[in-house]
Each structure stands twice: as structure tokens, then as C-alpha cells.
């Protein structure tokens, strides 16, 4: 079962590596941006369409 910590988009927090930011590039009809949301390192990423192996 792949986990978020194995994903290229996962950036662990220095003070708590069991958590991290999931950072993705997004482009909508008006602007381009990077977005981030907190995820657990051991979160199951099997269903994540954005998963990219590190």
C-alpha cells in the first residue's frame, strides 16, 4: 500500500516528520499557483490520482 511519504509531492515537517505538506501545482482559467495541505506521512495514497513516486 503506497503512502504519502513515498510521493514526490510530500514535504515532511521539520518538527514532526510524521506529518507534511502535500504540495501541488495547479492552473485554472485565470491563474497558476502552488497549493499545499497537511497530510499524514502514512496516509494511504492508493486512491490518489496525483501520486508520483519519489
Amino acid at each position, binding site marked *: 500500500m503506497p503512502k504519502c511519504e513515498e510521493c514526490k509531492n510530500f*514535504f515532511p*515537517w521539520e518538527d514532526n516528520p510524521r506529518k507534511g*505538506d502535500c*504540495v501541488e*501545482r*495547479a492552473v*485554472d*482559467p*485565470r*491563474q*497558476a*499557483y*502552488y*497549493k*499545499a*495541505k*497537511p497530510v499524514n506521512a502514512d496516509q494511504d495514497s492508493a486512491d490518489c490520482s496525483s501520486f508520483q513516486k519519489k
Partner: protein
Amino acid sequence: MGEPAISIVEHEKRQEWWWAAEKKRSSRLDYLRKAIWKKGAIGGLYPQGLYVDLERPVLQTEKARELESSPDPYVIKFAKILAHVLDNKTIFITDHSQLVGYLGSLPNTITWDPTLAAVLNHEVVNDPTCIQEPLEESLKIISEVADYWAGKSDLDKIMPYLDLDDAMKVLSGAIGWGVPLSRGGYSGKDYEYIMTGVHAFEDIIEELDRRIDEADEKAHEPGASKEISDLYDKMNMWEAMKIALEAGIRYAKRYARLARIIAENYETDDERKEELLQIAEVCEHVPAKPPRTLQESLQYDLFIQLFSRNEAIEGAWPARPDYYHGPYYEKQVNVDKTLTKEEALDLAGEFLIRAAEVSQYKVKWAREGLQGIEGTWVWTLGGVKKDGSDACNGMTIALLQASRLVRVANPTFAFRWHPKVSDEVMREVFECIRQGLGYPSIRNDPVLIANAMNWHGHPIEEARTWAHQACMSPAPCTKHGFQPMRMANATVNCAKIIEYVFSSGFDNVVNMQIGAETPDAATFTEYNQVFDAWVTQMKTVFSILVRPVNRARILAPKMTPRPFLSAISERSIESGLDVCDPSISRGNAWITAFTWVENADSLAAIKKLVFDEKKYTMAELKEALANDWQGYEEMRLDFVKNAPKWGNDDDYVDTIMLDCLHEAAKFSRELKCPSGNSWPILPENVSGNIHYANIVGALPNGRRLGDALYDGGISPGPGLDKKGPTAVLKSCSKIDHISDGRAFLLNQRLSPTQLAGEKGYQLWKTYMKTWADLGLDHVQFNCVSDEILRNAQKDPEKYQEVIVRVAGYSAHFVDISRKTQDNIIQRTVQGLG
């Protein structure tokens, strides 16, 4: 071959200011301006491409569920829910941006707060326009969230404690709008405490810790008293404030981390890398510590505004950005030379853009009343410092220039004019008006300072710190002077007052008795009887709307607390009381008087045609109005054309206007807010004149049900001011702008051709001198030609960026209803000189 490129000068000659601006602004501002997702509702519906953000309601609901069995008092639970949202929501950084932070999870989202009111949640459930695909999945989430908060939302909690009769009349939508909630209105801020570079979040947390420790020690010494009992509530409040501030610091650090991740892992452009590292440094520093630079100061302010809007729906944005950011501008641009004017202009422009993006899901009547915008973000510029000297600075000019480059319709500016304002600044103000922004509106600073002292007893130094609490009303930014929540439901649809004179208070549109049961108007044989009935209806309607606000203000500290807003307010930090607690506020309430002038014009028509000339009887008039003038067209035209109208320097009707205002002012002093202060009236409209068109029945000024009402404040009816701009000013000057009410909105239309060049500036300056000499407190201008407005109606795609002044706010012309568009075109274009 494409059309030859048009030069900036040519665009300006053609008054195509929006295209000229596009060519003049930096590539960064151009990108960011075009990146905005416009959030203002059009015809009550949100524009295509936007959707309701479900992330936050889900986070709020999951945390609330988790805390259900917790022994924490409500205020701490509430702060923890706020912290949970800030810790877990998606954040983003837009390319080229230097300032960060948005309420929603993505740029095209509208945030929804399900904790406020079940009525709001029902609207989301039934919203046909902005639910994200896959629809079924979204609707399931929305229903679950709405179900969870049913009975738990603020309004649900407050309602049983209000007078049911008053509440039903308020909720009928006939006489007022808004709800009496401390998390749903206009929040002033204690900027003198939080924005002067002395205190930031870490300083406050330290102070809160000290107070909690002291209180804890005292509470456990031998003894017992009310004071000791009160300490437990205070400790909870201080704890909740701390939770909110700590979450704010963590939220900023999330941006710092994201900016570093982008710089170190993704960005290839060295210049942008530097900018991202700069963003990281800024967000590591503020809001934890006081700002050191202009960028930090703007970012700090933006964070504060966002946190406050994470806690409440704020329909306005009281601010004085040149005053509080000016010292950083001066230091960096003029003293240290660490920032160029162009760089500062970019930051000022981006600050406007960040504010323009802010959006919160609102009920339909609010969306209709604020056509094309998200709320009345009227930022205050200019004015005087506490010592009375001129407060204008480099940032005043930078913001005025930036507004012409980014041309957002919201925020707008209101400029506090006073005799010491330099010609350089006045020219910048004029340039914004000439270029058709519809702002700044101009406020008469000496008059409004005197007004604040007169009505609410603010000491002069406090009064001088004022900023617009919403579109129009001045409120100081000090410890005791600022008003944490103006609940919008003390907003009166005043045309109902004269309507109820003829129906003995029965509202035929919503079918209920709302006003007073005054005697049958058909039996009146003297004008005084009409006026007495009018006074009774005015007092009744005002009271119905004011009482729920007073009640909600008293209930707010316990039932709907504001831990974040309290945490940035010196009076709450000191006292341990919620910021809305009336015992720590001077009180600065006002009654917004929508659709006011219809009363004077109607009474004048009755007096002249019924009682002076005896052409009609009151019974005939009552019958004509009951039939919406149908079958009485000739009579109706008599009331339109042959009765004197406000705004023509005609004492006949102007005296009646003064009689109405004097009665209202007298009663305002009897109406008291929970802090013991008065409730003066403030005539203005937003776009209530269109919203209420189908709610106000036929009126004696010749108006029929469905016709647009006047555009508001003390502005004459559109096209009814026939004697020129000086006559308008003279009529308005008969009002005492210090003691007859809190403020008086005046719309004027000027000709862009006449305002061209130096001659145009001199003409306008002469007009403004007359306005100031006559002691008016407000004026705002539309300066877009009929030709451009008509072309925009025909070809909206081509004129997307044309801005007009609607009422207390500006909007893009294409985003307002046809009825409002027509109403603006109908306004008389005043020739100056």
C-alpha cells in the same frame, strides 16, 4: 492584419481608462489583476466558474463533532474550531504574488460558514449555480453539514431570546435587512492597538499568559466574591483568545513553509526564487512580531483581516491603510531608500487585489442589495492625525495611483478632506474621479469629527482616528471608540414610513401589520395629521429594528463570542470580556436610512396638492395609492410634475425634509444602545433602491410599485434636480450635518468632457470649495458618459471593466442589474461652472 496598436494617450483621450491602465501597470500587476476571480453576485447569482468551498464547513463540522463531549466552555470550543480550520485548510501561492492569504481553499471558491444561520445553510443547499461537480457528492456533504448545524447556529441560538413580534417583522424583509448577529455585520478594529507597530501576536500572547496566571492565583487564594467568580469566565476568554492568536501564527508559518518549498524545489527563475524566500521571511515574522517593512505591514494587515473573516461574515472592511502603512512607506521609500516608488506601487496594487478577491457566501437578499460586489470595502484615506495635523503621506498617493492601475470595484476609497490637504494629493484624488472609478467619495473631516463628538461623545483625539465602519459611517479606531460589530439589521427601508401612513401600518406587500395603527389617512383634514402619523410610523419602524440589535449585543458575549477579534482589542485583553460586551464600548450605533428622500417628496406633494391647492382629497389619494395609481395616471403625473422636489433649493420641500430629519434626530436621542449612546440616522442606500422596488408600494411622489426608488441618501430623485449642482448643494446645506444625523450620502454625476485637462480640475476644485463651505459631509461622483454606459449595455463584453458608483460603493457596470444601470443613466449630469 490586426488593428494598429492604440497608444495610452489615445485610450485616455477616448476615456478608455481600463485599457490605458492595462498598458501602464507592471507585468506583475497585470498578471495578478487578470488572475482575480470576480466574486460579486450578478442579479443575486454568483458568476460562472465559482463554487462554494466545502473544505472549511467540513473541517468546522468534524471539529465540532469531536468537541461535543469535551468539557470546554463554548468560547474555547469555538476558538479550537477556528484553529482547526487555519491549521488544515488548503493554502496557495499565486505566481508573481508577493502578498499571500485567501479565505477559501482555492482562488475560485466562495467560503461558506455553516455556523451562522440555518437560513444561510438552506440557501447553499438550494443554490442552483455554484455547487461543485460531482453534484451528488457535494450535495451530500452540504446536507450533512447543514443538518449538523440546524439548531446550533448563532441565529438559531439567538432567536428564542428575541421578541418574537419584532423578529417576525424584521424577517419579513419589508422594513429592514440584515440579522442581529455579532458574527454577521461590519467589524471595526482597534487599529490604534494592533496596527501601530507596538503590539503583535506574540506580545499579546505574553500579556494573556500573564493575566491568566494572575487570575488563576487570585482565584485560588482563600476567599470568595463576585470578582473571583467572574475570573473563571475571563480566564476562559483569555484562553480562547490565545488559541486564536497561536493558530494565526501557525497559519502564517504554513505560508512561509510553502514559499520555501516552491523556491527550493520548483522555481527556476532566480528573481522569483528571491521573492518567494522574501515571502517566507515575511510570514515567519508577521503576525507573530510587529512589521518592519511595507511588505510586512501589508501582509500583517491582510492576515488580520482574513482571521477576522474566518471568525465572522464581515460585510464591510473598515480600514485606514495610508495612515497605518504610511510610516513603513515613508521609511523605506523616502528615508532608507530600500524600496523604490514603483516597488511600493506594486505592493499597494496587490494589496487592493488581495482584498478584491475576498468572498463569503451570503443570503440572497444581501447579494441583491450589494449588486456586483462582495461587501462594502470602503477604505478611508487622508484625514488628520490625532493632533489635528494633515495625515496624508506617500502611501496615500501610492494607493490612489495603484487604484487607477488595478481598477478594482471593491475595495473603494473614501477621502477625508480637510483644509490642509495639499494640492498634490487633491490632484490624485481628482484623477481617480476623472478616470471614472466612482471613488474616492469625499468626506468633510472637520464636520464629521464634530459630528462624532456631538452624537457619541468621542473625545476629539479619538474622533480624529475615524475610519468608515461601512459605506458611510465614521467610527474611531481606538480602544473604546471602535465598534466591534455593526449589526446590519438596523437598516430601515424608510419609504415604508410614508407608505404606512396610508395603510395604518398594515403592509400590503407582505400582508402583515408592521407599522403603528395610525388613524385612517382618508379622514385627515390637515397636513399636520399626515405629519403626525408619519412621525408615529417612523418611531415604530425604527424601534422594531433597533430593539433586536440591542438585545443581540447584550446576548453576544456569551452566545456568539468573537475570540479572535477580542484578542486584537486592547479593551478585551485588559478586561477579559468579549469585544462585543457593551460595558467596555462607548457605543457608536447608527440607523442606516435607505429610501429616505421619498418621504420628503411625498409629504411635499401631499401638502401642496391636497391641502394647499385642494385639488384632491386624502381619500382620493389613498384610493389611488391602493390601486398602485392604476386608473389615476393624470393625477399621478400631477404628483410627479407639479409638486416641489428635493434638491432644487426650494424651501417648500426643503423645510419638510428638515422637519422629518429633526423628528428623526430627536427620536434618535431617545433610542439608546446597550452602551447608553444614541442611534442617529444615516441616509444612504447601497442598492436598496432596486432591491426594495418590488417591496415598496405606490407612493405619493408618483412612484408605482416596482419602480426603482431614488438612489439614496439625500440625493435628489434621478432627473428631478433641475436647477443645477449649486441648487443641489444649497438644498443639502440646509441640513445641519453635525446634529441632524450621522452622515448624509450625496450622489452627483459629472461630465467627463467637462472634467478634462487642467480646466476640469479647476472647475472641480471650485465645486469642492462650495461643497466644503456649505458644510456638507459627503459627496461622490459618477464620471462616465451616457455614451459609454449605453454602449456597455449594448455590448457588455467590450465594456467589462467600466466602473460606476452605485451608492456607497462602486461596481463594474456590467455586473449590476439593468434596472440599476438605467437608474444611474437617469441621474442628472451636472454641468459645473
